[in-house]
């Protein structure tokens, strides 16, 4: 038998190369991209199986599954990038169900012409985030669209986790008298993105809060406090998330404006643009609704965790047939904190 010489394959040009249509065609170029970029950084035993799907062991419990698409622009921003954001986002969606996140899958839609150097940075960032969180990316998919039909890169991540029997953190469990806790300053992620966007042309030192919250949540569950609802207030901000919970649970809420933790630079940027931090997205914060008698225990647990240092009680759940979320303003009046309408648009005058 003659020995076949292995052909020379020019390695990917990660400095100056760009994504082209062949990277999504299913041929050698795609195999090379997966091998030299994705597998290299994300490598783990399940991904190494090299099949169309991954086969993993599953601990006992009920399965929780969540998916999240990421289309953020700019792709890189102070405090993170679309890569780590896509890992954190799905882990958080699973964790707020009270589940332990186990595995992630990632789908990439790449735009023709996207620099491979940027792609490598994003994949490294994902790998780092997944490793830090202890949740491996076990399978994935890559598609390429023609130039002008995407926005650089879109990433969809899907995750699975398990939740023990008896743990139930549905949004429908808020009860009158419960306390509402937020795990830290609000509006950081959204304002970090806004400040970066070209059209704004002002640079505020605002850093995104993107982080995986399952560690904090594990500590909270261990505290034994009767947590009724957990949610991460991402798009639409704290206001929208609380309105969702109020409707699901059939209750009202009363917030105290003075108790809301807002970083001064975020408050200033919001003021400048006519936005309200209550409606600005977070990527590393959670809202917990807890029975009143356990509030102190839970708050202390959260404040002892690095991701919950600035946790504070921001309001209470109350009976309200109209499911209004209201707020006592710092000024002494009352107002509704309503659903977000459309996109938050700046006021002009």
């Amino acid at each position, binding site marked *: 038998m003659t020995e076949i010489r292995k052909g020379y394959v020019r390695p990917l040009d990660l400095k100056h190369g760009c994504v082209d249509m062949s990277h999504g065609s299913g041929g050698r170029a795609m195999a090379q991209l997966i091998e030299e970029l994705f597998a290299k950084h994300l490598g783990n035993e399940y991904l190494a199986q090299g099949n169309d799907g991954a086969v993993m062991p599953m601990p006992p419990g009920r399965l929780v599954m969540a998916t999240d698409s990421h289309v953020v622009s700019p792709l890189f921003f102070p405090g993170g990038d679309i890569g780590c954001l896509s890992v954190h986002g799905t882990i958080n969606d699973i964790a707020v169900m009270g589940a332990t996140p186990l595995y992630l899958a990632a789908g990439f839609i790449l735009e023709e012409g996207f620099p491979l150097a940027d792609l490598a940075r994003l994949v490294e960032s994902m790998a780092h985030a997944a490793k830090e969180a202890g949740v491996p990316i076990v399978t994935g998919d890559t598609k390429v669209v023609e130039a002008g039909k995407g926005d650089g890169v879109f990433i969809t991540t899907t995750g699975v986790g398990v939740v023990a029997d008896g743990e139930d953190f549905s949004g429908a469990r808020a009860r009158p008298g419960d306390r509402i806790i937020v795990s830290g300053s609000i509006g950081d992620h959204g304002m970090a993105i806004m400040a970066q966007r070209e*059209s704004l042309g002002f640079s505020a030192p605002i850093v995104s809060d993107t982080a995986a919250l399952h560690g904090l949540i594990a500590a909270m569950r261990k505290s034994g406090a009767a947590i009724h609802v957990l949610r991460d207030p991402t798009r639409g901000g704290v206001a929208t998330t609380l309105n969702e919970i109020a409707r699901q649970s059939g209750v009202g809420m009363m917030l105290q404006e003075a108790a809301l933790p807002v970083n001064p630079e975020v408050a200033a940027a919001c003021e400048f643009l006519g936005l309200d931090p209550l409606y600005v997205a977070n990527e590393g914060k959670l809202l917990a609704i807890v029975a009143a008698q356990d509030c102190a225990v839970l708050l202390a647990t959260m404040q002892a965790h690095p991701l919950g240092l600035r946790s504070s009680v921001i309001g209470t759940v109350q009976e309200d047939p109209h499911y*209004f979320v209201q707020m*006592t303003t710092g*000024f*002494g009046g009352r*107002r509704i904190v309503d659903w977000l*309408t459309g996109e938050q648009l*700046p006021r002009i005058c």
Partner: protein
Amino acid sequence: MKYIDEFRDGELAKGLAVAIAQAADPARRYHFMEFCGGHTHAISRYGVTDLLPPNVRMIHGPGCPVCVLPIGRIDMAIRLALEAGVTLCTYGDTLRVPASDGLSLLKAKARGGDIRMVYSSADAVSIAQQNPEKQVVFFAIGFETTTPPTAVAIKQAQALGLKNFSVLCCHVLTPAAITNILESPEVRQWGTVPLDGFIGPAHVSTVIGSRPYEFFAEEFRKPVVIAGFEPLDVMQAVLMLIKQVNEGRAVVENEFSRAVTRDGNIKAQNLVSEIFELRQSFEWRGLNEVPYSALRIRKEFAEFDAERRFDIPYKTVPDNKACECGAILRGVKRPQDCKIFGTVCTPENPVGSCMVSSEGACAAHYTFGRFKDIAVVSE
């Protein structure tokens, strides 16, 4: 935030609330119109009315630039984007205002119109610079506050020799609108709209000064207090108005002395008059045609006037019959008096313009204050 939080201090507000309650004569009622949407927004967002005695009522005025923009003007902007194929630059508020054929600028954008939200008129000039092959039109709306920046943009475009930049000028004038309200039969003849005084505009007054209001105080015997847009400013102004009413005075007082002078910003005024001139008449939503109430671009700057550059005649479009925006803008009705408020007309699907901008009387009441109506009903 330094210099902002001081004007939102809850403790000072309590003190002012006591002073207002003491000053207000329980035997009478006080009706004050805050002209500006900025005040409407502050009153609703901070819950200022909760700190006022029940016999002091605030009436929301027409000073919301988006709310007074007639449908016909938005139609012009949409036609520019969809038919003339221009890049239309607009302030964010304007995007959702309902126009003819179920369209809005936002929907026109979804249909392929190149419509971009900008934060300042200068951004529109930059877009024109960067896209020399496209015609770029800045949809200029607003009162005297936003007029000088539009003037600056036109001057800049001229200095840069831009041939692809023009302005769809819809700038309107505050004093003309106040006169229109004061001369309306509801106020002057029939007295069905009781009006005891005005909270005068904050930002507008930094440009035009406090002098233009002196005429109203004298001619119509209505006190005017110019106030800043922070909630303590509003409360202080209410106190000053109550005192004027009690003492039978009707003069212009300036609460916003940290920014407003009697003469205003002369430099800005000169720039505006260099580039703009009065229109004989302009249609306002709610107030109909108001003589000499708006600006247009002077002949000398005709090349920057989108109305001259493109063939887009103005066509009046009547408001939805059920919509009470007109009456609400004149202070004749309150948002909750409108049949479609909160049912057919919501911030998600605004029928009238007052439901669009957060400065609009209906949107402010819906978003921040509607729980108060329900409480009254259920008690």
